[in-house]
């Protein structure tokens, strides 16, 4: 049996890579992918705890997180497309005005 701490450690590593990515990357799409990475790191802890506590709850949470991530990706990518149409850029630092 693989100890629980291994999974938690891996999840923490993935999460921190995601955080660093959000801070370092300036491209909106890459930022978005880093957020997805963080969500996935959390999913891993959910599933690991669900296994070690022998409960279905954690897996259900993961299911709902995935549904929310799908919704978020759809809306976020639509925003990115309209941003690109209006500004011709994907750099978050250049999209800092509320008006066109």
């Amino acid at each position, binding site marked *: 049996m693989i100890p629980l701490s291994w999974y938690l450690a891996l999840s923490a590593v993935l999460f921190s890579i995601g955080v660093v990515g959000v801070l370092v990357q300036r491209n909106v799409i890459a930022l978005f992918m880093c957020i997805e990475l963080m969500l996935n790191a959390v999913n891993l802890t959910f599933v690991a705890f669900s296994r070690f506590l*022998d409960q279905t709850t954690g897996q259900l949470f993961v299911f709902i997180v995935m549904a929310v991530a799908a919704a*978020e990706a759809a*809306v976020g990518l639509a925003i990115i497309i309209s941003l690109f149409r209006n500004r011709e850029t994907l750099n978050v630092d250049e999209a800092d005005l509320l008006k066109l």
Partner: protein
Amino acid sequence: MEILFILFAAIAVAGALNVILQRNPIYSAIGLIVTLCALAGLFLTLAAQFIAAIQIIVYAGAIMVLFVFVIMLLNIREEESKIDRQRYLKWLAAPLFVALLAEVYFVIRVVSYDPKPLPAQGAVPPGQILGTVESIGNAMFTTYLLPFEATSVLILMAIVGSMLLARRERTVSEVTIVTAEQIEAAQLEREDEAHETETVGAGH
């Protein structure tokens, strides 16, 4: 089993590093897809077969396809802008990363290897196996019906919202601001055309 964990974990971390280190978004996307597939493998080692399958179908098969689709639609080859005003964030990132890794160390030292099972809501009923479609379906449509329905409402809102956002509207710059001169010119043109058709018609 340990070998499988180490293999998948290494692939996942490599993919994740690829996501943040590549300048080209399509390489980042491929890195993330690799990470997602490796995570699905890890879910299998945790007896979560349904979640593993859903992970690949929803994340790798739908969400990431959308990402790649948008990258291709906007045809981004390299990062087009090199302006980096918030460069100090990079210096913030390093200590944060170290702090999080310290947290990892703490977790490994503190978390006991076998926590006691807690009898609570959502525990697997007798006769069912953790992670199968049946056990998850049972929990989802009984105990967790409300969150499930709330998720469906959220998705409906997302559908409507993304339709509205991505629809190609006439923006302010495209709406032509018509000046008096232009109207005059257009009228003159139309009259000219009318003359031409008349003359052509007369010729016949």
